[in-house]
């Protein structure tokens, strides 16, 4: 399983729990257009921290805040890669 597919699965899981209708995901889809709200993203970020051991949003490095689903996945791929290195 790649981080990308894990994140897609997590979006679906949280959307279902929070009774949100998830838009079909693509790398170009804006995060604001996914159908998920800030509480959903708060939960997703917390679960990714538990699963991957990283929270790129709270890291010391300045980050470009992700705009699209692709940005979001790359942010975690980069953070997980940096943590593993």
């Amino acid at each position, binding site marked *: 399983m790649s981080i990308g597919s894990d994140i897609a699965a997590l979006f679906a899981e949280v959307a279902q729990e*929070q009774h949100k209708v998830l838009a079909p995901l693509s790398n170009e889809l804006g995060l604001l257009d996914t159908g998920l709200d*800030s*509480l959903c*993203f*708060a*939960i997703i*970020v*917390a*679960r990714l921290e*538990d699963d991957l051991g990283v*929270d790129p*949003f*709270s890291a010391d490095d300045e980050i470009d805040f992700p705009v699209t689903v692709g940005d979001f996945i790359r942010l975690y791929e980069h953070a997980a890669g940096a943590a593993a290195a």
Partner: protein
Amino acid sequence: MPQALPRPEPQSLWRSLSGAGRLAQRSLSDEHARVSLAALARGSSLGRPLDELRGRSLLLSTRDQLPAALALIELDGIARRIVLCPPEVASTHLPGVMRTAEADTVVGDRSAAELGGALFAPCGAGVAPGAPNREPSETTEWILLTSGTTGAPKLVRHTLATLTDAMAGTALGYGAVWSTFYDMRRYGGLQIFLRAMLGGGSMVLSSALEPVGDFLARVGARGVTHISGTPSHWRRALMSAAADEMAPRYVRLSGEIADQAILDHLREQYPQADTAHAFASTEAGVAFDVGDGLCGFPASYLGRRDDVEMRVVDGSLRIRSGRNSLGYLGDGVPSPFDEDGFVDTGDIVELRGGRYHFVGRRGGIINIGGQKVHPEEIEAVINRHPEVRMSRVTARKNPITGAIVVADVVVTSEHAPLDALRDQILAACRDALARYKVPTTIRFVPAIEVAASGKLARVRA
């Protein structure tokens, strides 16, 4: 006919408790010793004559509660001021406490060499024969320390009159044996101690290091009839098989929000007992008891009732009565009173269906993306699940919303598979709570820490 309890003599606990009579049948006990009140009538637990301690300001610092209880009985009306020091107060705070209280004397069961030049009066659980001069000469100020988890404790001023005002007019209960999970040097424990002493009863004291099962067995063996604790104390007690070893007639809860689940569990465990939950704080004193078995309190309690006035301002309960403390000792500490002389308790209430319900502490709010959440309201929902014994909701830092809520849960010994239980708890939360209040994580843990105050240990952000 039950005799009405007289208002206590103005200046002596000894006079009031001996006035209630039957000293030979009454005792104070802990896990190590038992002292008959009759022994105190012809002896003393103190290593110095009472006349040497007259008019002094004392720090009462003992490890065990029994020596402290005996010393209090002997020193009220004799000392100018007594600071009741619970054992877990850090020794680094004691010099500051003594300065603020102008304490010139330490009454204790250990050497007080570290406390500088103060006079030391040893005390213990033994009573040496003698003829102490118990003639009261002071209206003693009792200083209670509030349980700040960090920083220096606050010194709250009371007198025997403010501490016992709630008991005036209640019937003497000969043969009553009182006990409490609280340390008797805290307000909740002191109330039980004074009820026992003024009401003609005996008292079984707890011990900080004693396992809860051993304490419950001792309570059962001593025939305790009246017992009090916080909801956290009671939840822990109900996890012990020894809860079956006592058969109290009266069960009291105070110090934390009593949710419906704990009231129901206690009624099931002790069907023969009257169960009451009380609202009190060190600063405000006892405000009321609720005995109808329901959580919260009737809206009709607001206004003036039994010499206690209550109002709700900005959601917080405010109380004015003769049971209020006299305020804080020391400079630079904000007064607990508002401009009308009410104590602002900081306990937030909500009116639902003709009753006020406690929802949490003003200082304990979790902010989730601008939405305010009281952890206690979420715990109350989780605790409703029959297989949950105890829970604690805390904030977890979150970069998106600032915080999210997570829950630690202790389950009863017989429970469903944990995954199924988690789903059931979450479903109950989703039914009852706004979505931002639903815990994002539920962690099953073997135990949740209860602080020395008897309250759930909460880490404040």
